[in-house]
């Protein structure tokens, strides 16, 4: 029984369809990526999973059971736009939020101290939120989301506004939660995070699922159309080879060549080896970024 199953949910606001028949299944210990341009229906989908709004059609099951009050306690939610009480002490409001999730005050306090220690900011315990920098508020918000050890985590733009060091810190924490068996629904605009973390993804456009499934499989579906080439000498005539669509010389040396199909790659390699010593030759698989722009962007224009 999967911890989270979203089955053909539809949500309409008036005559506008915000979400149109989306399905996804998330396993224990899995991070599921929910991608889409702004206004594609990510937040609506997440709100339906959170039980804030109810789907018009379809159903959402948690461990095979429909939504109930008890589910609330098992969910941790990090909203896209962060919110904490600015004038309340970190300890007060996090303990309050944890208690609303059913933790005892003592447990919540202990857990909070551990997390602050872990994030290297134990001195924030007695500070008011408005005294902290934006990035540090974000850390506190993240702790608020996970303090009660939720089994189902919903992270909306979890790493926005953080410096690279802190992104790594939180990413490591998310991975750890995943490895400990949490089920995580994850939304972001940063494709490299998705590639690093997610096993499966769904790409939404205008409320419709345009792409879904395992990341590996999706990438396999897209042709490899790019070659990275580096050599210790100059190579000319690349543009004239059959199947080559474009050549771009890179700042740091070497070339990036767009090709029509994977087979054209061999011709390029042969051509290059005839002229110089090749130090690097790679037929690149498409990045998620490219796939995203292709599926969402192209038809968009």
């Amino acid at each position, binding site marked *: 029984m999967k911890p989270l199953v979203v089955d053909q949910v539809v949500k309409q606001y008036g005559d506008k369809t915000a979400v149109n028949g989306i399905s996804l299944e998330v396993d224990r210990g899995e991070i599921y990526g929910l991608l889409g341009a702004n206004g594609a229906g990510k937040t609506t989908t997440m709100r339906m999973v*959170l039980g*804030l709004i*109810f789907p018009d059609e379809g159903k959402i099951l948690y461990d095979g059971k429909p939504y109930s*009050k008890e589910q*609330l306690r098992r969910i941790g939610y990090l909203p896209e736009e962060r919110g*904490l009480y600015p*004038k309340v002490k970190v300890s*007060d409001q996090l303990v*309050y939020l944890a208690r609303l999730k059913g933790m005892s005050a003592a447990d919540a306090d202990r857990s909070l101290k551990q997390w602050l220690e872990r994030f290297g900011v134990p001195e924030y315990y007695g500070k008011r939120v408005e005294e902290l920098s934006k990035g540090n508020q974000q850390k506190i918000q993240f702790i608020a989301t996970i303090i009660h050890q939720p089994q189902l985590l919903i992270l909306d733009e979890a790493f926005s506004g953080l410096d690279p060091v802190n992104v790594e810190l939180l990413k490591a924490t998310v991975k750890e939660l995943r490895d400990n068996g949490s089920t995580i629904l994850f939304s972001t605009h940063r494709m490299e995070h998705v590639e690093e973390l997610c096993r499966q993804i769904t790409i939404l456009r205008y409320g419709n699922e345009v792409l879904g499934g395992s990341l590996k499989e999706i990438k396999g579906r897209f042709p490899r159309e790019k070659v990275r080439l580096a050599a210790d000498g100059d190579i000319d005539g690349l543009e004239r080879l059959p199947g080559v669509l474009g050549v771009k010389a890179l700042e740091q040396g070497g070339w990036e060549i767009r090709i029509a199909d994977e087979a054209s790659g061999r011709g390029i390699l042969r051509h290059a080896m005839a002229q110089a010593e090749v130090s690097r030759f790679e037929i690149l698989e498409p990045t998620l970024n490219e796939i995203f722009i292709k599926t969402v962007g192209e038809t968009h224009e």
Partner: protein
Amino acid sequence: MNDFLNVTGFTFRNKTRGKAFIVTTIILVAILSLVINLPYIISLFKGEGGSSAKQVGYASVQAEAAESRVTPTLVGGWLEEYFASQPEEARSLAMVPIDASGDAAADEAALKAAIADGRIDGYIQLQPNADTGFYDAVYKSEKMMDGSSAEELRAGLQLVKANAAGLTPEQKQLLYSPVDVKSVQINAGTGEEDGRSATQQGINMGLVYAILFLLFMSIMATGQIIASEVTTEKSSRIMEVLITSVSPLNSMFGKIFGMFLVGLLQIAIYVLAVFVNVSLPTNKGALGDMNIHLSEVSPDLLIVALLFYLTGYFLYATLYAAVGSLVSRTEDLGQAVMPLTFLSLGGFYLGMFNLAAPDSMLVKITSFIPFFSPYVMVLRSGVGSVEYWEIGLSLLIMLVSIYVFGWLSAKIYRTGVLLYGKRPSFKELRKAMKAYKI
């Protein structure tokens, strides 16, 4: 229930620890203490022995004394005699003759000089009135709006006019001696002899005034705070986290109840401050002199006030919370709560303007209309006459409205907290409710 108590506790702790709460409470306690101690403080400055009666000068022309007709000097003398005959504690004016020559301009200059010297507080001038055959008086003083002195002088002149007919000393004494008129309020419907005495009426009047004011302030202030709390939670998006943890009903009523406890604590502090100040030995005398005795306060009024404070608070608070949930930014809040403020203000004015006419039909009807009844019922039971069943019925109507509006507010709240952007119209709200399946 646990969540409800949690929200209540959090709200209460944060508000009572806040600077705003502590500062306003201290300031109000200071003001209350000052007001209560004012009579005593004023009495300290009056200086002992000196009569508190106002000194009013009149031009006394030696030459006129001999004339047989009724001269201004003669009338002034009569007045002096009349005020002097009044019992000391009731005397508010004393006439002071100022030597004058009979020349109008010079006399006035002399009277003005007397004011400047501090010998008199004001003076009276008499001008013959051909129609009545007597004098018209002008009272001149440096004070603005000194109506009470003019009224005293008018009453005095009215009396002493009889001297023109020539009176024996006995007749004069009879004429000048004060007559005691008492006003007792009765309840004609029940025929009971539980009428309120004048001092009781005065106390009740003052108390109703104070309660209406307190009720209005408390409903307005706490309502505004509740609404702005909800809006802040919404605009800071903490609402999205909260609402996944606790049901909207619990979060709304938890907040309302928490604020209610804050308000109650504040009122308790004020009442305690009043009580302590009134019980000070120095104030007992000063207030007693003004005929204010706490024992005269009728407990019925206090109980009715408390009941209607409770119900009124919850009725308004739920609506304030609902309005707060519809607004996304704190800047827009003032405009959004305006209708509620006017509603509350309407009830307050109904109470205030009908203090003198507590048995009019308007008052009777509005005392059963939910948003006005907290104010108007306090008025009726304080200074008007009201039956127990009427209070009961009005309370019942209040409770039903709290239930209805609480339910409605909870629905609006549940929808409103997820609607961001511009304030939704009623139509949009209904549509959203349908969409959210609430």
